[in-house]
């Protein structure tokens, strides 16, 4: 290197500053649209005008809640999310327990198969389900949606449960067994409480995935049974007004609530870990 020392220092400075600039730019890109939407949702004008709004009012929120089209979708979304996530969590935790405690030939293949819905494009999952359910004669809208949502949430449930099972201290279970507890009792009073945080974070991620899905649900709705995201997308394409901004603020609120639960139950630091060389 022929670069002299002060010169080299300057290159380092430039690189350092441009790195900081890139980080700030990324943060602005992530936050700015959300900020604009949150402000515009309170716009008092009755039409979509340019930023900034001349005054503030809640009338877009009133409009959102006065449209039965959205309310029906919201009810279906919550129902489907709760039912599908409960099924996924129960089935997923059981499967994870099996995969954690048994050794057999082809275990890797079984695990990969269970996680494979994650790599299949959701549209393909929705479309294949539509064809299959029509073939076997399932036309019940709610049932079809629940099946679709179980498929997309099950891998998350299995993965988080497996990760937390791998982290527990097996000696605690052995101690309980030695003291005379039955296997079922150990499962309920030792194992499940130990993986509680993993199950909660799995539940939150599964719930968010279910509540957000459009690609799978679009194929499985019928005229009276549709989810809120499907309703929002179709109204977004028809008329681009600020009712959706109000809905977006509500959905941001849902995310904040989920984050709050996640932080209280698990803690952000523990989700990522501090790393081998962490401070």
């Amino acid at each position, binding site marked *: 290197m022929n670069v002299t020392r002060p010169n080299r220092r300057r290159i380092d400075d430039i690189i350092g500053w441009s790195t900081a600039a890139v980080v700030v730019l990324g943060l602005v*890109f992530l936050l700015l649209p959300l900020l604009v939407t949150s402000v515009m949702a309170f716009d008092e004008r009755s039409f979509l005008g340019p930023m900034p709004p001349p005054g503030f009012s809640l009338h877009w929120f009133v409009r959102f809640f006065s449209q039965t089209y959205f309310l029906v979708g919201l009810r279906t979304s919550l129902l489907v999310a709760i039912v599908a996530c409960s099924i996924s969590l129960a089935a997923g935790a059981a499967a994870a327990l099996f995969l954690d405690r048994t050794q057999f030939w082809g275990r890797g293949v079984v695990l990969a198969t269970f996680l494979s819905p994650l790599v299949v494009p959701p549209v393909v999952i929705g479309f294949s389900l539509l064809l299959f359910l029509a073939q076997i004669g399932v036309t019940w809208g709610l049932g079809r949606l629940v099946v679709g949502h*179980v498929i997309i949430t*099950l891998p998350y449930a299995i993965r988080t449960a497996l990760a937390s099972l791998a982290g527990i201290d097996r000696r605690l279970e052995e101690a309980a067994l030695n003291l005379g507890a039955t296997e079922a009792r150990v499962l309920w009073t030792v194992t499940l409480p130990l993986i509680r945080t993993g199950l909660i974070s799995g539940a939150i991620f599964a719930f968010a995935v279910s509540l957000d899905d459009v690609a799978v649900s*679009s194929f499985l709705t019928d005229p009276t049974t549709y989810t809120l995201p499907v309703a929002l*997308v179709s109204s977004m394409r028809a008329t681009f007004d600020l009712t959706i901004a109000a809905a977006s603020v509500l959905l*941001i609120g849902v*995310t904040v609530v989920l984050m709050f639960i996640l932080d209280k139950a698990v803690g952000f630091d523990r989700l990522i870990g501090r790393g081998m060389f962490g401070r």
Partner: protein
Amino acid sequence: MRTTRIWLLLILPSSLILLGGFLLPMLGLGEESFRLFTPGRVGAVAGAPLTLNNYLELATSGFLDFVVETLRISLIATLIGLLIGFPMAWWIARRLPRAGRAIAIGFLIAMVLLSVLVRTYALELTFGSVGLLRGVLRALDIAPNGRGYIECLVAAGLLHSVLPVTALTLLGTVQNLDHRLTDAAQSLGAPAWRAHLSVTVPLCMPGLLAAFLISFTFSISAFVIPMVLGKGRVLFLSNLIYTRFSEIADYPSGAAISVVMLAIALFFVVVVSNIAARQGRKA
């Protein structure tokens, strides 16, 4: 013997769900893609003759353009995501104090959980025809409904989804990096940028590849983002499948596109995982 049966009972529910809700439907989809479609009907008739037409039609029509467009825009969004996400992860892991770190991680997780509808709507509102850039666009004579700008918007939509995931994935990698190695390079006389380029980046390669794979497979299967932000001018493969289903009810053709799309997604998963495995062996 009895315990084995109980253990098997544990995996039974998930297996049944996966079989009936995923594996059988996928097989059915493959079969449908080889059925002859009669225009005007909804899907193929039961027992319709087998044909390769649905695939041949894709090879001849402008289908390839849609494949290229999907891959191109996805690749751009993924690479920009890595270029911003990597410094972001490094900065959070190495520069922020503990309290700030927890807040930053919480923020990124919130951005992962954020609804894709909120993202697309917010981006359209902020950068679309009535957005903040209205004046800038007019001054530069860029039509907000022109094709080039719409492509940028779709890429921005993908980037908004991919960036927090990339940063979080790389955060794990950067944290497990022994920063003493970079320090050693610097104390031996390498300038910081060189130390990072020749020590930090190669050591983070497995994480970079993982982040690339996650972002890219997410992007090529995106549905809402190109549908809303693309305004019908930019169509991804997902949107094409949905159009075959909702507008002309040509299920066999939609199934053929699905099979092709699945093959593309799996191709990238296999290729990138292989590269990652080779990297791992070298390290």
